[in-house]
């Protein structure tokens, strides 16, 4: 048989992700080896320049220049700020935030804005299609947090540019978070002690995360693709609910897998990479969920927006209003299409209700809050995922078939998909429970753990080599 001419190893135009074979077999070994063998003084420069190089390789030199420019400017302004007095400090803060957040806003909304301004610009005005610079949503937030912390005198401005640069661009956390806080990283930034144990444990986390991504998330993704293929208006209600749950699991293991890989890489480099997930699906309320899902983003919004706006200290009305602003902006941060606004609003609604009366209501129940949370969050992911509002409405009309079924629906579609995916669901749901994690941490050096992990690693590599491996879902932020 003529062999397969083309595998799917075409270059994606944006980023060398952790699940890229080039990263696993070229970049990872190089960086860890060089970093470990380097003398202490050279480690941060290595991290800084090495990460920049990888970034530019994957994202292009323009994105690299932008990253470098914003990093440099933030560094300089922070130094200036720490040597100035009010009111200059305020001016500098405002300037730097405008620079960082403004750039982010412009990049994200460039296309949307030009479309809105088209009547003024004329029909012939064509706009170069600018790709969103990789990771900009994350590193801009990281830079802004640093600046605000310096302004608040919570940290001292970093004087060593290479150290600061390493903090900002270190590849394990550059492209998809977690959003690091300078004070958490500071000590280890200055002095690192990579060790054999760190490398071993770090690599294990990396393998775990890789398996979650490639063997769980990417496989669950096919279910949603089946629904797209059939057409949302034409799926049965049980299948619609299965799809929602499936996507919720897919998104979790995709992002959680990535975060585990980042933590693992951090361990190998003796860098503290913050935890981003804490078994979110065990939460009892939406409020709690977002303290356990994408933790670093939630704490960023809490510390730099919610609390400055008043937070919980000025009464309920102010708190609700602050929450509304936070969730509006959280929605916008995730995407530029209307469904993200809806998503933010949907979550805000439930968080507000929880604050006002639901929390009291649920206090005496044990199981009900969990069911409530899962019920709400699974549907929120549908809103998050479907960008076309018509399609979104179609999907919800299947979740809640109050207007009857389309005659085209295949009544056996749920059984068919369930037969294919039930075991993936079972594994995924099991991994959401607390026991596997506790058990792993206790037994990770046991051959019963690392031998299967070894197998999982190579199976993942097989899938990556022969399939495409979809890019991480949060990658386009």
């Amino acid at each position, binding site marked *: 048989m003529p062999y397969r*001419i*083309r*595998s799917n190893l075409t*270059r994606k135009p944006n980023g060398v992700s952790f699940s890229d074979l080039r990263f696993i077999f070229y970049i990872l070994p190089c960086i860890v080896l060089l970093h470990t063998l380097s003398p202490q003084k050279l480690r941060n420069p290595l991290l800084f320049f090495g990460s920049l190089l990888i970034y530019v390789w994957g994202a292009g030199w323009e994105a690299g220049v932008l990253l470098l420019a914003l990093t440099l400017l933030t560094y300089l302004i922070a130094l200036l700020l720490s040597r100035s007095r009010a009111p200059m400090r305020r001016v500098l803060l405002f300037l730097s935030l405008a620079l960082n957040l403004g750039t982010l806003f412009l990049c994200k909304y460039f296309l949307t804005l030009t479309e809105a301004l088209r009547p003024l610009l004329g029909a012939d005005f064509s706009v170069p299609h600018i790709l969103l610079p990789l990771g900009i949503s994350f590193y801009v937030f990281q830079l802004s947090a640093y600046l605000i912390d310096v302004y608040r005198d919570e940290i001292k401005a970093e004087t060593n540019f290479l150290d600061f640069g390493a903090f900002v661009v270190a590849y394990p956390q550059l492209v998809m978070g977690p959003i690091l806080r300078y004070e958490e990283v500071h000590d280890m930034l200055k002095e690192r002690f990579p060790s054999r144990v760190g*490398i071993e444990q770090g690599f*294990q986390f990396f393998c775990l995360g890789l398996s979650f991504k490639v063997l769980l998330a990417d496989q669950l993704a096919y279910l949603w693709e089946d629904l797209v293929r059939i057409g949302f208006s034409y799926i049965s209600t049980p299948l619609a609910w299965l799809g929602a749950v499936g996507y919720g699991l897919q998104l979790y293991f995709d992002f959680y897998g990535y975060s585990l890989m980042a933590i693992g890489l951090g361990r190998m480099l003796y860098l503290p990479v913050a935890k981003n997930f804490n078994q979110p699906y065990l939460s009892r309320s939406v409020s709690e969920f977002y303290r356990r899902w994408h933790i670093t983003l939630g704490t960023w919004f809490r510390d730099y927006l919610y609390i400055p706006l008043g937070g919980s200290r000025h009464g309920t009305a102010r708190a609700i209003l602050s929450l509304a602003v936070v969730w509006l902006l959280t929605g916008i941060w995730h995407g530029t299409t209307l469904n993200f606004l809806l998503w933010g609003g949907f979550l805000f609604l439930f968080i507000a209700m929880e604050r006002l009366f639901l929390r009291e209501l649920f206090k005496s129940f044990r199981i009900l809050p969990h069911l409530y949370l899962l019920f709400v969050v699974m549907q929120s992911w549908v809103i998050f995922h479907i960008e076309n509002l018509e399609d979104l409405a179609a999907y919800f009309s299947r979740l809640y078939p109050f207007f009857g079924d389309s005659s085209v629906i295949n009544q056996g579609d749920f059984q*068919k998909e369930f037969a294919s995916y039930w075991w993936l669901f079972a594994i995924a749901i099991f991994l959401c429970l607390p026991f596997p994690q506790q058990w792993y941490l206790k037994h*990770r*050096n046991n051959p019963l753990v690392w031998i299967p992990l070894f197998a999982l690693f190579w199976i993942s590599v097989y899938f990556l080599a022969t399939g*495409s491996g979809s890019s991480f879902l949060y990658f386009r932020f």
Partner: protein
Amino acid sequence: MKRSFSPLVWICCLCASMLAMLTTIDPGGVYAEYISELNADTPSIAAIFIAAQNGVYPWSHAEPAQAPASVSSDSAYQLLNNTVTESEMRASVGNNDPFPEISVTEEPVEEAPAPEVEDEPDTDIGFITVDRSWFDDALFIGDSHTEGFYDYAGLDNATYYFKRGLDVWTVMEKAVVNDTLTIPQALAKQQFGKIYILLGINEIGIGTTEDFAEQYGNVVAQLREMQPDALIYVQSIFHTTKHKSDTSIYNNDTINARNQAISALADGEHVFYVDNNPIFDNEDGALKTEYTGDGVHVKAPYYKLWLDNLCLFGRA
């Protein structure tokens, strides 16, 4: 005593080095061609896995060039029912990648563009319009398109042998019938009046148009031999949307070339070619975007149009 040693990273390094050496040494000479097809910066280890997917292992030997050898099953590596060959399709179909992949190197299409598309059946060949009872003794063989047809066209009286990712090289070898029998085994037990084949989209990345058409011809010949009284209907490969065509390997020019090649298999007596594309295409000869969710398959309600079209190609 608490163990503090985990050899995982070390044995992975060791294995990776050994595999890399294997691709360099290449004892059987089998990896050279796979490696040459990779991107320049892709680790050569990937070639080992792609080769394995095609049934080529380190202990295999290189085949003489141009001989289409028999295909070995790659089912050992499947985690799901869906075959891995489908995964390439899923890649471009998937919603995860906001930047769909650019068209990859495919051999230049030398054939002329698509044959004339007609809405009415060619009356010279003597087609008649039939109703659903025509399909009582019909068999449908195919890939995921046939699966969709089975699920949504509402034709319950026919027989269906399909599998996602099925292609002309493995169609007669995979256990497609109830996951237990191969098609030849099933055909030995039952005679059909007509057999409809739809294959081709999963082979877009494999082989040349000539190779594809030749193998397709072999399959048709096999079917003719096993079912001498059956009419064989070769169905056109469906077009993709313009966007999918421009940004993935599922390019409509390639599809048209292959359709032209397999239409030549029709003999007007036992083997016929049915062009289904007109019912789903827009004016530019691409799949209508409103008909599809993934750019490749039509959504549920449109399979009935396909069935209606087939009803126009009955024989007396």
